[in-house]
């Protein structure tokens, strides 16, 4: 019995030391700040405590699908031209079906050619179905489409990650969110310059060059009127930013060729610079070889005409083509500041997003609020815990010490768990710690009340302790399981702060099973072993 007790005591002390290590690690020193820092190194604080920004973004994956079908439409057009098929029109009739291409008006003489051409070149990507009057519909195969969407998501995550890294944010999180919904979770601790971060993340940074077909017009209505009420299928309207060209100032509208000369991923490098003439900030970019060749061909063939440089659907530069341009260009519109020019060149370097992003949710906690929350949470915990401990001492006297020790150990194990598991402590998580203290003491009360009952029934102290523990055990187990079921459901359904609450609550209750039942029992046994048989215990 004695030896057994000693082994158990040593075991408990070892566990205590283990979890204390979990909380503090090996502190750099014993000053207040050194200890605080070592705790913070082990226990990760949530954004609601350390301040920062939490974003949920929706990747508009349908845009990526649309871009693919656009480019495939262009390829079909090319293939038709090469094979001398004239008169066919290729369109995407339904804006809600970006995966859908329709070919109409094929001359009757060419139907066999078209059919074999489509099947040989696009059959692996599309389900091809002939329709009435020599028409075909191409619908992107579902596997191809979902692959494309997944790649758009992955690529978006990569791009956002590298953009954030270049901003110098420490420990950012960028990960897929709500599986299958193409959403991205971004967590940026300690960020307080919201608008800059937002611009950097959200800008699709899709840069392209288009031939200018018409304009400028002061507004969209006038533009539409002079085009006869309808934009031709191979063109689009776009608005310029102020200062996009020397003779525009307020954001005029232009008619541009729909298919760009080059675009998107064709950029090799970009840097911020000052314009040689005006000394205003500008961004200089360089194209890849292939895109450079295309650009060279286009510019040499269109000398004297206008071209437009478009960034995220806004025209940033309208210029007359004076000669062949091979692989470089600049953007100086929009009255950029040097910082904006630097950010934009960084965006161009890190690459375009394959689709635009929509904000679904944002939660930002300022640094001052985070600091206040920690302070209030810690004060509330300490006051709550002290109140419980003092009450237990008064109510149960000697056994109260036992309960308080168990409670203290419970807290150490809970925090140690947090340190080891890398789980995040949030403000509701601190509330979970407080609640654990309140609920944890329940087990002790159950046991002690039972022991008192057994003592009243005339049992000897040793027998009463034994009976008390064994009778209370069933109840304790049931109560813990029900609460952990609640916590588990919260963990599954909850996000961020609520998840943090579920974590501390379940860790705390699991630790409580050990401390209230096992540790408390050992303390009782140790106490009883020093007493004569039948000598009363303090409870």
């Amino acid at each position, binding site marked *: 019995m004695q030896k057994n007790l000693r082994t158990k005591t040593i075991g408990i002390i070892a566990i205590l030391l283990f979890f204390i290590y979990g909380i503090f690690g090996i502190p750099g020193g014993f000053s207040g700040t050194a200890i605080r820092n070592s705790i913070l190194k082990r226990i990760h604080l949530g954004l609601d405590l350390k301040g920062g920004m939490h974003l949920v973004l929706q990747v508009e994956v349908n845009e990526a699908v649309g871009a693919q079908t656009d480019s495939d439409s262009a390829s079909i057009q090319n293939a038709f031209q090469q094979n001398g098929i004239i008169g066919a029109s290729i369109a995407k009739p339904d804006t809600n079906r970006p995966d859908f291409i329709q070919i109409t008006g094929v001359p009757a003489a060419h139907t066999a050619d078209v059919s074999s051409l489509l099947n040989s070149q696009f059959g692996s990507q599309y389900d091809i179905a002939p329709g009435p009057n020599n028409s075909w519909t191409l619908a992107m195969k579902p596997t191809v489409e979902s692959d494309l969407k997944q790649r758009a998501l992955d690529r978006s995550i990569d791009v956002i990650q590298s953009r954030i890294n270049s901003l110098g944010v420490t420990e950012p999180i960028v990960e897929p969110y709500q599986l299958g919904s193409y959403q991205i979770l971004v967590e940026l601790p300690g960020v307080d310059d919201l608008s800059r971060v937002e611009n950097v993340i959200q800008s699709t940074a899709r840069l392209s060059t288009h031939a200018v077909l018409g304009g400028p017009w002061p507004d969209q209505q006038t533009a539409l009127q002079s085009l006869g009420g309808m934009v031709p299928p191979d063109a689009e309207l776009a608005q310029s930013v102020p200062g996009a060209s020397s003779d525009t100032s307020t954001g005029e509208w232009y008619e541009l060729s729909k298919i760009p000369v080059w675009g998107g991923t064709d950029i090799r490098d970009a840097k911020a610079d000052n314009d040689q003439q005006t000394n205003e900030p500008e961004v200089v970019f360089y194209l890849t070889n292939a895109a450079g060749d295309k650009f060279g061909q286009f510019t040499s063939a269109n000398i004297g005409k206008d071209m437009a440089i478009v960034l995220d659907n806004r025209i940033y530069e309208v210029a007359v083509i004076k000669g062949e341009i091979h692989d470089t260009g600049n953007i100086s519109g929009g009255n950029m500041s040097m910082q904006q020019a630097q950010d934009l060149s960084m965006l161009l370097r890190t690459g375009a997003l394959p689709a635009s992003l929509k904000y679904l949710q944002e939660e930002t906690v300022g640094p001052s609020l985070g*600091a206040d929350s920690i302070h209030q949470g810690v004060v509330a*915990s300490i006051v709550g815990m002290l109140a419980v401990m003092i009450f237990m001492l008064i109510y149960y006297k000697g056994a109260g010490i036992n309960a308080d020790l168990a409670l203290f150990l419970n807290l150490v194990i809970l925090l140690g768990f947090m340190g080891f598991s890398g789980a995040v402590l949030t403000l509701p998580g601190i509330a979970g710690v407080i609640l654990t203290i*309140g609920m944890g*003491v329940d087990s002790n009360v159950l046991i002690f009340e039972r022991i008192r009952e057994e003592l009243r029934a005339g049992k000897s102290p040793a027998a009463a302790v034994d009976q008390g523990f064994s009778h209370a055990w069933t109840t304790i187990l049931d109560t813990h399981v029900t609460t952990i079921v609640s916590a588990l459901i919260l963990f599954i359904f909850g996000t961020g*702060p609520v998840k943090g609450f579920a974590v501390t609550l379940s860790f705390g209750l699991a630790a409580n099973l050990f401390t209230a039942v096992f540790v408390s029992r050992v303390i009782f046994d140790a106490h009883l072993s020093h007493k004569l048989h039948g000598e009363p215990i303090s409870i």
Partner: protein
Amino acid sequence: MELFHNPRIDWLGKKWYFLAFSLIFSISGLISLFFWHHLPLDVDFRGGTVVRVKFAEKPNVDHIRSAANKAGLKDPRITAFGPADHHEVLITLSGEATNQAAIDQGRATIIRALTQNYSPEAAQNQGKLDLDNATSEALTNWLEQQDPEHLGATVAAETKYQAQADAVLHLRDGEDSGVIPSLVDLRGVVDPAVLSAFQQGSYLSGFSVRSVEIVGAEVGTQLQHQAELATLYSLGGMLVYLWFRFEFIYGVAAVVACFHDTLITVGAFSLRNMEVSLTVIAAILTLIGYSMNDTIVVFDRIRENLRLSRREPLPDLVNRSINQTLSRTVLTSGLTFLTVLSLYKLGGQVLHPFSFALVVGILIGTYSSIAVAAPMLVAWQEWRAGRGRGAALPAAKKAKV
């Protein structure tokens, strides 16, 4: 010390009072839910924009409103938040006003409106640095440009100004809770040269943004749906567990009691017109677990007593079981209540709705295990007896632990 010495209270004899009590609270909650405040939802669920701003002095709501109107915000709701001497307000835009295309615009507009129009001296401060809203980076850059200590563009200057900026932010975000009352307070915090640079080239706008929450309408609906599911699963999970551990009727009684607690707690939110947020849902799920705890303790004792004395009439046996566990019930509820109360009083504004739910729920949860769950068992047995199906409340399976 002992609270109750061998209590012999006839709980079941008071069941009509209990019923009346429960009905009054449930029905007034229901009336409020359906006809009065309905269920006020937090931005988590309803979608919209909430910006929490702290002001250095008592905020002038009319000023804020006119600043927001000038910036073109569609009727923002401006409400005081927390104790009056904290000078905090919430500026709320509804879900519809939180434009889907540019969900983040509301926040930017609110902040711009305050910067440009709130302070009467805003115009003359143009071009100066706002110390109340400057970021660490902006502040360091500004100091490097001003270079009040004439260190040039050196590494030493960078380190120096970074440290000075950190000292300012430490004071602002720590002790001052976000807004610096006066530039004079920086004396001793930064070097005299830096302080005089601040006095010349910076100003205090008198407000700072403490937190921002923006939720798109679709996310709100999604979260609402998840919260409902979570609550249902939680109740269902409990029912199954109790069914497995006891008997079906015990599970039903316990779940009815929990439902009763949830209803009254939610009703209390409606009556007080307090907003239900995600953390409140977390609190309610915790309460379901907690109330279940209390009920299980009583049920466990009923089960034990049923095994020991099969002859005793059920009402007496249930009364005895409640009395035997009364000390424990009151003690633990009291102690948990104590911790939750300290959370409610000291845990700060952010946790206020959460701790309110716990404060109400723990009281109700304790009450319901005595006044709802146990009488239901007896009522069920009497109903069975009335239909001549024998009297047996399942003596319950023997605990298998």
